[in-house]
């Protein structure tokens, strides 16, 4: 589903440039539940941005759903994001003046779907995350956990290939964090590829595979004992 070969990325800082990703190789198959672990500055957010087509890489190859990503202009990136990717952010990133239902329905608007159908599908997904009765609430009227559930519903609504979650529990307490992770697990069990970025060990432990990143290189890539106990060392 996601295949990365010798991926490099640097950011210019003044006259110098900061080499953030130093030749990553990573292969995530369809239906996997993977977490990227690393402290801040390890390059994990940069990796997610490139995988999420929010940023472009300098060198190397990136295949999304078998398609080589290159020479991507904004419009193509927008269409691919809409079609293949669902985003979940640490700070939820809901649109403040839209209610839960409208937030969930927004990606479908950009697919050009009609209003009634949009709302019907959005309501199904809100029901799936257990917030059907909160459909007409504004984000400010929802708790942190509820907001993140709305964001999960929004990420799922276009039926993407991959869910990308950037510190999905970073702004939540441990109980809510756990329930959000349960939700992601359930989605994964239904066959969705889920890609989580986190710096919390116990969150990473809930996924099936942990990729550890340090200073722009992968230092370990191992399966957890959630599904089986086989450990793969690099």
């Amino acid at each position: 589903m996601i295949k990365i070969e010798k991926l490099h990325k640097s950011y210019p800082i003044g006259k110098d440039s900061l080499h953030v990703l130093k030749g990553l190789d990573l292969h995530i198959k369809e239906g996997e539940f993977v977490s990227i672990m690393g402290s801040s500055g390890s390059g994990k957010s940069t990796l997610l941005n490139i995988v999420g087509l929010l940023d472009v890489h300098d060198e190397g190859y990136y295949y999304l759903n078998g398609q080589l990503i290159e020479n991507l202009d904004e419009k193509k990136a927008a269409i691919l994001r809409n079609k293949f990717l669902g985003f979940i952010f640490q700070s939820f990133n809901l649109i403040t003046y839209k209610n839960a239902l409208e937030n969930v329905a927004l990606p479908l608007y950009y697919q050009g779907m009609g209003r009634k159908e949009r709302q019907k599908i959005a309501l199904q997904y809100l029901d799936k995350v257990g917030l059907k009765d909160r459909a007409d609430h504004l984000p400010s009227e929802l708790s942190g956990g509820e907001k993140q559930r709305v964001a999960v519903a929004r990420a799922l609504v276009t039926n993407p290939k991959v869910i990308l979650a950037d510190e999905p529990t970073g702004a939540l307490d441990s109980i809510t964090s756990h329930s959000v992770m349960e939700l992601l697990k359930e989605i994964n069990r239904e066959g969705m590829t889920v890609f989580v970025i986190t710096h919390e060990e116990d969150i990473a432990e809930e996924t099936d595979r942990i990729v550890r990143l340090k200073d722009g290189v992968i230092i370990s890539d191992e399966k957890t004992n959630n599904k089986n106990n086989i450990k793969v060392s690099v």
Partner: protein
Amino acid sequence: MFDLDRWQEIFQTISKNKLRTALSGFTIAFAILLFTLLFGIGNGLKHTFEKNFAGDSENSVYINSGRTTKPYKGLQSGRQIQFRNDDSKFLNEKFENEIQFFSPSIQRFNVQATYKGEQNRYTIRGVYPDYQPLESAVIQEGRFLSYLDIERRSKVVAIGRMVEKDLFGGYSALGKNINLEGISYKVIGVFNDPGGDNDERFIYAPFSTIQGVYKENDEVDMFGLTYNSKLSADQALAFSNLLTIMLKEKHKVDPRDQSAIRVYNYAEGTKNVQQFMMVLNVIILFIGIGTLVAGIIGISNIMVYIVKERTKEMGIRKALGATPKSIISMIMLESVFITAIAGYSGLLIGVFALKAIGNGLEEYWIVNPSVETYVVIGATIVLIIAGTIAGYIPAKRAAEIKPIEALNDE
């Protein structure tokens, strides 16, 4: 083109962000309101000047006589110059090509006019039929004097609208007889005059009749004429100068004598008024454009602020699959929509305010302040274009910003 879904999205954004909408809408509405008011008041000033100088034909020349101030050719100073009928003939023969309308005139002030017990004092003028276009008098009932009246020395008068109002109350004066210092005249016409009430307090009678009643022999008080309107202002001045020289020569007046024969050419005044009007027009235009520019700058600032405020939202939308084009068109349609609606309401308020003012500010030299339809439409179009540009630049920037930067924007 019309995409219901897109408009629903825009209406939602507008209605859910009332403060923002109100703020930008107010700026535009206020700018246009000011524009309309200033423009309207400027036009009011213009109307005042037009009205004050519209009384007489612009190409008219009036010739008066007085006493000489310089001795000339053995004649003493202090001699009264008297025009006579042969001067009429002289002028008409010498300036056949230049003169358009011509009339000698005899004028008597404070003539008592009576009709069935109502009485008042007016200026009575004995004139030719050509005097009507000279004064720009407009007959509203009956007719003006005719050459037949002159020939027959008929005792008929054409009276001003105010005379009719004073003496006849609300009734028509046509066909009635009024008494002017003991002589009865039949009213054959009532006129109005764009020069205003004062010009409508005159009574016109056939020149020959008045000459017979008030003058000895063939004396004339003054001449009024209009020259061929094809003459340029400079040609017109040259014509009146030549006319002055020839008249002075005929009456043995020193060419340098300024008081014995006085020729007043409206061309001089017209030139000044036209220059003044031009300056006034430039000022009005400057104020109008200035206000519009201020409004455009205002809306641009607000658009930049709005886009900045919405950077994160743009990032979210882009992450969810919004193309740059859809972001640009959303911001721009919003901007154009608000600009058009607010601009139009400002305009309506302005136009109604001007209507309400009406002639209430006449004492401040502002008459009928109003804006022309083409100005109204022009300003609206300028605004919509401005709204488009004001929306486009920040919208383009918002669309170009990387979603990741937008999302990190707090």
